């Protein structure tokens, strides 16, 4: 048990594929998710995120490949709720049953006492409302209840499908802090989203898929790329020379307008000082941020990755 908490539990997806009729929803997808970090599982709607998560959790049979949690298939976990907590759909509650009773039903499967149920409802902030029938819950309450379900067995791994969906800004901030704390405890957290910007500030790692294919996996820093600075000057060549002497890589970049120089550094002071040294008048000096949203669109919306679900009728006609 002690070894478990220090090493954590890894999620391993190996060559996972799912075919629905002649539609390939997930195609030979492989990636891994590390403990102690929050991993964003990203892709546009219809990219295969939910199908992948459902295969990982034993709800959907893979056509081929497997998903492993701590080296085991979900169905082989002796007491799954104590290893993996999942919130897949914010709407999957019986409208006539109270949220508390929904939790109690699931608690019964693992002999979890009612006290734990009440503690969790307190933790997610809906202790009183959870005694009412779930039919009247707002989306935010459903998300919180879903989170309580996921945490029921105090699992090492959390798998949350679009957890921020329907939360108000305050709720999203709360969720972010909440997930951060859990990750700091060494838990493995995988959250899906169709928007990179929604989880950008929450996640450490990203797995981006489009049309069932992996298009990018890495840390959010890697996605941001190296920190760069933009300088606009009337003497770009002189600046580049001076930068090179100082050991900084710089290049003239026409696409950013006349006299633009991109420097591989995030030290604005140093770049400004070097420009003075080079005798290059500075017209503009700022950090150049990677536009993640644009990068995300480039990755997922490139022609070969365009959502086939949307233009299926067309391809049918063509074929």
């Amino acid at each position, binding site marked *: 048990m002690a070894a478990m908490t220090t090493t954590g539990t890894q999620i391993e997806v190996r060559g996972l594929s799912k075919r629905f009729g002649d539609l390939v929803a997930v195609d030979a997808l492989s990636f891994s998710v590390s403990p102690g970090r929050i991993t964003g599982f990203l892709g546009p709607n219809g990219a295969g995120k939910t199908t992948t998560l459902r295969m990982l959790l034993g*709800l*959907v049979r893979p056509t081929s490949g497997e998903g492993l949690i701590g080296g085991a298939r979900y169905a082989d976990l002796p007491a799954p709720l104590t290893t993996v907590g999942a919130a897949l759909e914010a709407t*999957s509650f*019986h*409208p006539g049953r109270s949220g508390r*009773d929904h939790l*109690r039903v699931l608690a*019964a*499967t693992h002999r979890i006492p009612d006290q734990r149920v009440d503690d969790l409802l307190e933790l997610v902030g809906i202790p009183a409302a959870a005694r009412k029938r779930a039919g009247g819950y707002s989306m935010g309450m459903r998300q919180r209840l879903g989170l309580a379900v996921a945490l029921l067995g105090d699992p090492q791994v959390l798998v949350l499908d679009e957890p921020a969906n329907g939360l108000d800004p305050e709720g999203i901030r709360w969720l972010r802090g909440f997930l951060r704390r859990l990750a700091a405890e060494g838990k493995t957290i995988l959250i899906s989203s169709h928007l990179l910007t929604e989880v950008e500030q929450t996640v450490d790692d990203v797995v981006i898929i489009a049309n069932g294919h992996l298009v990018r996996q890495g840390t959010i820093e890697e996605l941001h790329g190296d920190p760069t600075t933009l300088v606009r000057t009337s003497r770009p060549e002189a600046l580049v020379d001076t930068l090179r002497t100082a050991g900084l890589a710089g290049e003239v970049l026409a696409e950013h307008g006349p006299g633009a120089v991109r420097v591989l550094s995030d030290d604005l002071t140093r770049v400004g000082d070097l420009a003075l040294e080079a005798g290059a008048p500075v017209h503009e000096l700022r950090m150049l941020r990677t536009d993640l949203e644009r990068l995300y669109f480039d990755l997922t919306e490139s022609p070969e990755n365009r959502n086939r679900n949307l233009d299926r009728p067309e391809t049918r006609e063509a074929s």
Partner: protein
Amino acid sequence: MGPLVRAELRKYLTTRMYWGMALAMFVTGALFAAITAAFIIYGSIDAGGNELDLEAVLPELTLARMVYTGGIQIGYLLALVIGVVAIGTEFRHKTATSTFLAAPRRSRVILAKAAALVLIAVGSGLFHVIGSLIGGGVLLGLNDLAVLPDAAQLGRTLLLALLVLALWALMGLGIGVLITNQVAALFVAVAVAWIVEPLLGWGLTFLDGGDAFARFFPSQATTATLDVFTGADEQVTRSMGGSGEQLPWWGAALTLVAYAGVMTVIGVWLTRRRDIA
């Protein structure tokens, strides 16, 4: 296994369905026992040209048995509904996801549902039996007829009635697994149990040897299990809608067990393979 059965019982007891069902079982039991009693006491049937006074021609045990099982067709229909809903609601409200996440070995979930359904059907069946005893007993008593002519024999019949209800609930579970659209499943279950199957059974009586098949039908096996017509002469039985050749009670009970068993096995097999989306 125990925790899963407990979870299933909790599921049933945490929606309003359980008391609605208990109430429906009680009311229909009382109402139909009273109607049956009134029919036997005040009515007469036409048998081969001469009017038969049922109260006079039926032995008192047979009479009491008919009265107290008067609502069984409604009772088993309700049990069938309980069975369909036990799985149908999981698909309808998508709670199947959390159910199978908590218990990924799905065959165990279906078996736990089956075990819980037996308890639930017996539990709500008790309301039905008590309702029947009250609704029928009052009328029998008021007309100076024996309320409990043979307590041991009647007790046996009522226990068998509980068994019958449990078996119909399991058949419902099977239908609910086969047809995941709950509304469609309920419609099919009710239509088959009340319209298709009786009509088919009736139609078979016109065929040579058709009775031999028809007596294995669930509704006729149910009547046979409960020994409803035992003691009444054949003419009376026929004119009250019972077919001539019936299975012995144990054979009929085993027939129902076979239906329930086959449905449960199909349920396990299908549920194991299905994608839960």
